């Protein structure tokens, strides 16, 4: 199995606080990997560095073995790397349809096409159908419940037909029924062959979903492996209980 | 039906505009109806202080002249509108005055910046445009037939009074070196340039030459730079407050040139001493076109009426007020001579001869530039005295300037 994403020695600090400390791991192609750690352990910062939202202080990031010198979110999306955010970021002023249309990659010439072309419309309707959002298609996204915004954000992320999806705590602040729906979508996504890296701070969800789990604590990688093994790792127990 | 609502809104706006239009076009022209004079003044905004002093001049003329029976036996009515110191509004105002209110005459606004575009509008409709202040060279270069600057001398002559005086001195008494410093202003820069040309030709050495911006000026370093050049004479193209600041900076820097000339500001008998301190005014030169004690036609009456109407004393009368009053005075004379309100004839008359006024006899060249000269004044014994030309002098000039106290 080749590594789709490799992170080597990535460090990021804010002022004096080291948020990510020489972090090294890799995500195998086609895998569903979990990234776990207590609050403030640098998971989101690491995501931001990988997806180009923050410049790293040192270290390198490789995609398909290719070194990415200066990660840029736009470029990465077009390379098939998509992500979600901790607090579902959607465009509340736009309709659901427009939210999805926006995420369909557009070439230069398509800039002047009307916002939602006929071909796009089919894909959008399909996505809305899958996520059960069809009845709200022409409502403004701001009218959605939080769980629905999560679904919409997830759906949006998939419009670019990504190969690697980074999900930042997709189940945070969502009711149990919605958690189940989201878990099913993640599983289905994985089954279509997409590589998934999932940030979570709740172990049980990762246990149910992931093949491999990576554990961060205070910015540093402390364990890596199948969920069952990681769960018994003393360092992990320390990080979770010792604090 | 959103679309129709919107359309109705537009129709509504047009309807309002239309009704306003129709209501205004009912002006009567009976023989005893008043003579309406339209003026746009900067009553708010950047130029509002000068705008208001001009307004006083216009209103004073109106009440004085109406008491005498008005113009051609008709009462004078002023229609003064505000342009908020904006040229767009000034242009609109003159358009409104001429084409909507169909005023009989228009008088000029304050500030060159509004004069040029406004004069063009008046020219388009054939109205005479007597202007109280600030005919910048570029306005004159437009060669407008209808434009008249109601001052004794062209704006660039402010400095020429000073050059005539200095060059009238015997060569060995003249200053040897000169520093030029000027505000970045439409007519001060070219006025200083005229002085420079004259002094350079006379062999006076130019040791410093600079221009400073209109805002946020820290005078101390500027004066330090001038002092470092050690000139005998400083020619300062100042406007008003900047001359006060410059004097104060000179005192602070202990820099005392032998000859110190300010184009404006120092001639302001009300504000100059209070702002720079009475002890610091001695020996400073400036130029002016009008002063309260001047023996010119109607001047005594003007000063008396001013004090009666607005209070205070003669030294507080602004030159702006006198200039505005002059316009009324001259135009009244011209209209009485023509015998009708006919702008074409008024323009022709103004061009054809000298007209008496509180600022002396006025006449203009083809571009509306006055052909007279200004008076050179100096602070002597705490009083502003006319020192040149000798025919008008009230006191002999005192040079070199005494040191700061």
């Amino acid at each position, binding site marked *: 199995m080749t590594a789709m994403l490799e992170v080597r020695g990535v460090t990021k600090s804010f002022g004096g606080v080291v948020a990510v400390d020489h972090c090294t791991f890799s995500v195998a192609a086609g895998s569903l990997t979990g990234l776990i750690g207590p609050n403030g352990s640098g998971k989101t910062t690491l995501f931001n560095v990988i997806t180009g939202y923050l410049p790293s202080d040192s270290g390198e990031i490789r995609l398909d073995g290719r070194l990415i010198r200066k990660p*840029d*979110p*736009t470029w990465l*999306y077009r390379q098939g790397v998509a992500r979600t*955010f901790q607090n579902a*970021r959607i*465009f509340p002023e736009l309709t659901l349809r*427009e939210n999805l*249309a*926006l*995420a369909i*990659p557009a070439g230069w010439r398509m*800039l*002047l*096409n*009307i*916002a939602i072309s006929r071909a796009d419309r089919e894909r959008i309707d399909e996505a809305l159908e899958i996520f059960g959002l069809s*009845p709200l298609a022409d409502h403004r996204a701001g009218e959605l419940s939080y769980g629905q915004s999560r679904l919409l954000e997830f759906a949006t992320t998939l419009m*670019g037909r990504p190969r690697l999806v980074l999900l930042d705590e997709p189940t945070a602040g969502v009711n149990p029924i919605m958690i189940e729906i989201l878990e099913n979508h993640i599983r289905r996504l994985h089954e279509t062959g997409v590589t998934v890296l999932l940030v979570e701070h709740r172990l049980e969800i990762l246990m149910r979903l992931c093949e491999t789990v990576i554990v961060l604590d205070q910015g540093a990688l402390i364990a890596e492996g199948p969920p069952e093994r990681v769960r018994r790792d003393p360092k992990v127990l320390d990080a979770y209980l010792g604090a | 039906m*959103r*679309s129709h609502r*919107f*359309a109705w*809104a*537009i*129709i509504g*706006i047009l309807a309002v*505009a*239309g009704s306003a*239009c129709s209501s205004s076009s009912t002006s009567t022209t009976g023989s005893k109806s008043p003579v309406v004079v339209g003026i746009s003044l900067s*009553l*708010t905004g950047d130029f509002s202080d000068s705008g208001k002093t001009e307004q006083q001049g216009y209103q004073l003329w109106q009440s004085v002249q109406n008491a005498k029976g008005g113009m051609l036996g008709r009462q004078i009515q002023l229609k*003064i*509108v*505000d342009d*908020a110191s*904006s*040229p*767009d*509004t000034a*242009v*609109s*105002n003159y*358009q*409104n005055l*001429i*084409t*909507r209110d169909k005023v009989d005459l228009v008088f000029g606004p304050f500030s060159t*910046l509004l004069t040029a*575009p406004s004069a063009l509008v008046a020219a*388009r409709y054939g109205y005479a445009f007597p202007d109280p202040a600030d005919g*910048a*060279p570029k306005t004159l*270069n*437009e060669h407008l037939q209808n434009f008249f600057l109601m001052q004794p001398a062209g704006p660039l002559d402010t400095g020429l009074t000073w050059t005539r005086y200095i060059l009238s001195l015997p060569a060995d008494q003249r200053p040897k070196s000169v520093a030029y410093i000027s505000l*970045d*202003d*439409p*007519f001060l820069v070219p006025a200083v340039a005229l002085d420079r040309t004259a002094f350079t030709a006379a062999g006076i050495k130019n040791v410093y030459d600079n221009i400073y911006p*209109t805002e946020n000026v820290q005078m101390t370093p500027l004066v330090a730079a001038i002092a470092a050049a050690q000139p005998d004479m400083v020619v300062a193209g100042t406007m008003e407050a900047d001359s006060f600041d410059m004097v104060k900076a000179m005192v602070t820097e202990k820099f005392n040139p032998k000859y110190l000339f300010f184009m404006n500001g120092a001639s302001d008998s009300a504000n100059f001493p209070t702002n720079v301190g009475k002890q610091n005014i001695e020996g400073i030169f400036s130029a002016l076109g009008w002063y309260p004690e001047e023996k010119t036609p109607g001047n005594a009456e003007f000063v008396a009426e001013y004090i009666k109407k607005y209070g205070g004393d003669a030294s507080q009368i602004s030159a702006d007020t006198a200039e505005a009053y002059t316009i009324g005075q001259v135009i009244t004379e011209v209209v009485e001579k023509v015998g009708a309100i006919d702008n074409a004839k008024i323009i022709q008359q103004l061009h054809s001869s000298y007209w008496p006024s509180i600022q002396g006899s006025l006449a203009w060249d083809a571009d509306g530039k006055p052909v007279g000269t200004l008076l050179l004044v100096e602070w002597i014994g705490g009083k502003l005295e006319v020192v040149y030309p000798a025919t008008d002098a009230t006191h002999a000039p005192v040079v070199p300037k005494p040191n700061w106290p």
Partner: protein
Amino acid sequence: MSRATKAGAIRAILVFALLLALPFVFTDHWIVNIAFFGLMFAVLAVAWNLIGGYAGYIWLGSIAFFGLGAYALAITFQHVPLTSGYLPFFALIPIGIAIGIVSIPLALLLLRVRAATFAVVSLAVLFVAEIFAFNLDGLTGGPQGLGMALPPFVVTTFERPFYLAMLVLLAAVMFCSWYLAKSKFGLMLFAIKGDEDRARGLGVRTTTVKVIAFALCCGFTGMAGGLWAYYITWIYPQFAMDPNTMFAIILMTYLGGKGTLWGPVLGAFLLAPAKEYFAYTLGGSAFYLIAYAALFLLVMFFLPRGVVPTVADFLARHRRRAAVLASGPRPAGEQVA
């Protein structure tokens, strides 16, 4: 053509037909003059709306490009005798394009920052432009101003050509604004306003999109500036690049409804004539600035979204209620849990 588009087209044709008829119906100079300034502010507000309303960037330097356009036309025609009074109108087209192109490098520099930083830096652009206009007096005449060749139009209909040219410019910028709002490009601008970082994460080339909107805004603003210069015939730095005009444009856009198609136009038609009219009739009221500030605050607090969206929402609610009443009680099945 969908119903909505059709209604929009009818509305646009109606409004422009009325505006086209105006100078022929009301021939008084002063009406056409005020209408000209109304149109000018409409062009400026619609152009500003492209970057300020659609993309949500508080761009405080656009009036610098108004001045740039004014100087460009005035310098071009300063010494050229006008064989035809219409020549400068046509010269506006290359000037507008050139200004749009010139603005691109500046956009690349400015758009590195966002939100309040962008606002501050864009205000700095305005101040810098003004300083250059004042100080490069060989080119701009400095504080003495710059006059341009007098328009050789007959006095009776003097304002009409300017009015019609400004109307054409308004039609052009409105078409541009409408087309962009309908296009993928507009969608991207709205997304940038909503959440620029998220948009980047969805493959939107935010920089390119912003720069294009910026260049369009500057180009149209410059053309309006050129036309203004030709009309007023005399330009000074402090009036060609006046911060107060800048904020007036923003106020108009907010009043009408920022980010909407007709909002800026409505705001301009309400405020621009009102300003001239009140200055003329109330003349001399020192409360002018205070009243202006109060109006500004009222709009910000009580009509933050502007007239057009507020009225549209009200009508939509009204219509929905009417529909509900007409069809009797209905299960609330529209909303999905």
